[in-house]
């Protein structure tokens, strides 16, 4: 195999890494958790003892090799230990999303045939008990927090502490078996199974081997020079591959400390107290934080506001340059230093970000101004692109080469290939083994040479070698003149404006692009109030000439930005209209996770789309709507269609000539 070059020298399983860490960093904190208002900590040696006790307890309960052990709960050290303990006895941990409803859980528990379930608290135990009829193979439920469980039938229910006590008591009897089982683990054995949420169809169980996890963790830790004295805050769902890589893979590889918050509500306080040096958050978290900072600044006194504006503006110009190691003048450095002392430093401290050396965001597109804000503060925020099937890392941005519009260069050990239709394929040591009990899907995703289809379309930028993702591959098309059409790329740019809630861009097989736009009632409503614009309804506000002017200026700004990109300059929006109703999942226009359903919108608003391409300046339309109580109704409106200026695009002339 191609991976054998270095793989012989590294520990072959997560439990083996644990043993190495005990030997190497035995007295150093491995886990912290805030409990009863105090940060409790466990060293690597203590954690290993706890893990061993759980493993022995699992053996005493009869866990067999190859069993699946489901783990459900919020991020807590004991649940991480349970996963490693399951690995120690040759079983496969399967973390589940704790906010999943019983119905969704049933499918996964049934599919992986879990005989053992480890639950965080009563809420999770209740769900599992509710499913007993559907998933009768569950033999034992182990819980961590016993509150409210006293009266439950304990014939199948055990406290984790009791399991550990039994394990410790049975050590003389079971120790030999444990050593045998742990010794049998190698690079090929399964490390973890993670279910992908799956936007379409049933969730799929992604089987990741020790090779996948350990080689990926090794490569990515070296890429960012992670150290044993780094600190992370484990607050993202345990069922998500990212958390598994950060809180187990990289933590065990480098030996850094994993900190668990007291509860979901205290996350921000705990973040501040710990001050992580390595931090991951989806764009949504960064966005919420920024909004709360801005709102609180609005309430501050005039002097503070002025200082904030002054130094932040300067930081926006200078901060990213300093981070990227570009030359910066002496005076500018001095002002930045001063600003850091007065404003930026304290702000970072409040956000709990004073010590961040490496920060990542991924999952969806992040607004450039949000990205720049954090970079301006001197926080080394970068983007990565990954998938469960790749053990997270496909591409990531190296230090000093960070831009909001790319997702970086291939991670070490990852090969990239762009197919004819623009779809991104990758091959790496992290590529998953298979989808559990689903050979058909495995074959459809991974070819015989190990190349995996991402389902995303993108291209590698000339010169820098950075990957840019433009859209889902199935949505990418060609315009009438053969130029690339990537609607989501443009829609995302439009949606970065707070005033635009949704945008749907059309143009596949056409000679130009057009857009339907939804305004964001909160943002635009707020703007209207400040500008003394009276309105009685969403529809009225959406049709107000000044709102249209504002949206037009946004569209034109996006056009300018799109025109800068040679490949995608054809996607500039020539004509647009603002919809008279909000796109809604109840009307089938969006999915429940608020993703646009193109086909349905195309059918439903066919008259409007026809008008966009016909050169009319307004169009009367009637639309069926579903009210919240389920009744059906109709709203009608005459919508104004506007032309937006485009840059350096000859298609405009053609339209005008028609």
């Amino acid at each position, binding site marked *: 195999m191609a991976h054998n070059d270095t793989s012989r020298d590294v520990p072959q399983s997560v439990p083996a890494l644990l043993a190495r860490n005990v030997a190497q960093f035995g007295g150093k904190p491995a886990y912290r958790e805030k409990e*009863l*208002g105090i940060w409790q900590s466990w060293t690597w040696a203590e954690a290993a003892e706890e893990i061993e006790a759980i493993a022995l307890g699992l053996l005493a309960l009869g866990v067999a090799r190859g069993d699946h052990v489901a783990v459900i709960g919020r991020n807590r050290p004991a649940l991480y230990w349970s996963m490693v303990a399951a690995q120690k006895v040759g079983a496969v941990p399967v973390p589940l999303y704790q906010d999943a409803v019983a119905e969704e859980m049933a499918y996964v528990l049934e599919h992986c045939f879990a005989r053992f379930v480890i639950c965080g608290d009563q809420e999770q135990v209740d769900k599992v008990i509710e499913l007993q009829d559907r998933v009768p193979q569950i033999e034992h439920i182990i819980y961590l927090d016993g*509150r409210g469980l*006293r*009266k439950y039938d304990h014939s199948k229910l055990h406290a984790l502490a009791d399991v550990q006590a039994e394990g410790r008591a049975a050590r003389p009897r079971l120790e030999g078996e444990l050593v045998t089982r742990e010794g049998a683990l190698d690079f090929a054995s399964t490390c973890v199974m993670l279910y992908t949420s799956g936007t379409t169809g049933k969730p799929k169980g992604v089987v990741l081997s020790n090779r996948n996890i350990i080689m990926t963790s090794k490569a990515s830790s070296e890429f960012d020079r992670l150290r044993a004295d780094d600190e992370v805050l484990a607050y993202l769902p345990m069922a998500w591959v990212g958390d598994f890589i950060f809180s187990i893979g990289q933590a065990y590889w480098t030996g850094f400390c994993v900190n668990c918050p007291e*509860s979901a*509500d205290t996350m921000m306080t705990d973040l501040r107290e710990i001050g992580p040096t390595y931090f991951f958050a989806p764009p949504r978290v960064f966005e919420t934080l920024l909004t709360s900072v801005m709102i609180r600044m609005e309430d501050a006194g005039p002097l503070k506001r002025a200082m904030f504006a002054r130094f932040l503006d300067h930081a926006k110009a200078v901060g990213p340059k300093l981070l990227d190691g570009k030359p910066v003048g002496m005076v500018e450095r001095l002002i930045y230093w001063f600003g850091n002392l007065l404003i930026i430093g304290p702000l970072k401290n409040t956000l709990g970000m004073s010590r961040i050396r490496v920060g990542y965001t991924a999952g969806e597109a992040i607004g450039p101004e949000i990205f720049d804000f954090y970079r301006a503060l001197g926080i080394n925020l970068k983007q990565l692109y990954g998938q469960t099937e790749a053990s997270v890392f496909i591409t990531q941005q190296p230090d000093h080469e960070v831009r909001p519009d790319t997702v970086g260069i291939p991670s070490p050990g990852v090969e990239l290939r762009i197919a004819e239709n623009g779809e991104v394929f990758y091959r790496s040591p992290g590529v998953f083994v298979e989808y559990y009990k689903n050979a058909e899907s495995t074959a459809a995703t991974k070819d015989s040479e190990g190349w995996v289809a991402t389902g995303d379309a993108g291209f590698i930028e000339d010169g820098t070698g950075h990957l840019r993702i433009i859209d889902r591959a199935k949505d990418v098309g060609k315009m009438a003149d053969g130029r690339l059409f990537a609607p989501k790329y443009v829609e995302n740019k439009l949606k970065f404006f707070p005033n635009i809630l949704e945008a749907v861009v059309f143009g596949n097989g056409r000679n130009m692009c057009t857009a339907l736009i939804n305004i964001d009632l909160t943002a635009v409503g707020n703007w209207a109030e400040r500008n003394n614009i009276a309105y009685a309804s969403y529809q009225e506000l959406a049709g107000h000439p000044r709102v249209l002017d504002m949206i037009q200026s946004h569209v034109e700004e996006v056009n300018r930005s799109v025109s800068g990109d040679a490949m995608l300059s054809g996607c500039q929006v020539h004509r647009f209209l603002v919809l008279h109703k909000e796109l809604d999942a109840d009307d089938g226009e969006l999915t429940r996770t608020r993703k646009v359903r193109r086909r349905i919108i195309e059918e439903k608003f066919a008259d409007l789309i026809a008008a966009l391409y016909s050169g009319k300046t307004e169009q009367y339309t009637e639309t069926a709507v579903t009210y919240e109580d389920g009744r059906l109704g109709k709203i009608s409106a005459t919508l104004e269609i506007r032309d937006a200026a485009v840059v350096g695009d000859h298609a405009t002339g053609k339209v005008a000539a028609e």
Partner: protein
Amino acid sequence: MLDAGQQGYTTADGRRIGGVVMEMRNITLRFGGVVAIKDISFDIREGEIRAIIGPNGAGKSSMLNVISGFYHPQEGEMIYRGARRPPMKPYQVARQGIARTFQNIALFEGMTVLDNVMTGRLNHMKASILDQAFWWGRAQREEVENRKRAEEVIDFLEIQHIRKTPVGRLPYGLKKRVELARALVSEPKILLLDEPMAGMNVEEKEDMSRFILDVNDEFGTTIVLIEHDMGVVMDLSDRVVVMDYGKKIGDGTPAEVRANQEVIDAYLGVSHD
């Protein structure tokens, strides 16, 4: 009425209810010429949830104030753990292990949640002023112990995220929970709750109900509560006393009380002549 004697009994959901811990015998309370409570007798069993219900002005809060030692009835006697209780000051009652919350929240608005909860430990502090001032052996040990208890209760009631927040900034529902925390931290044997769910929405009521049940289950605390929401009372309590115009008009399990004609009249409104 349940007749289980001093041995107690086990409820349908497996909770252990013990013998009588407190008994009210022919209590009458007057304010000048106004009779707030008229010749009322009932008992409270160890580990049960006992509700007192009735229309506005029926004398429910007065009854609770009699139990907590705030009012002294002119007639009748109270038997606590087999002995007649002499007239007591509220702090003496509190030392006997009876804690309460108030209908109109009575917290220290300027203090943090944690500090408010800590005040509930006052009865457990024995160190002298001198010890306290110099953070001397005993004072230090007590402080650590008290903080530990406070944190356990904060964890139990899931208010960690507002630990350091001044109470004045909290919404109503959370204040109610902080008040429960302060009562709970004194490790009471009997907990008196005066309308714990007044002014709450359905979700907050559900949360509070769950906490009350958990307290009862986890610490075995006997709970006496006044509540207006019939659904809540019927779901939560083991036995219910119904009052109207200072008189007891019903006493028994929720099902018995619901079938009682006098109770129905009191709630639907029948003219009193």
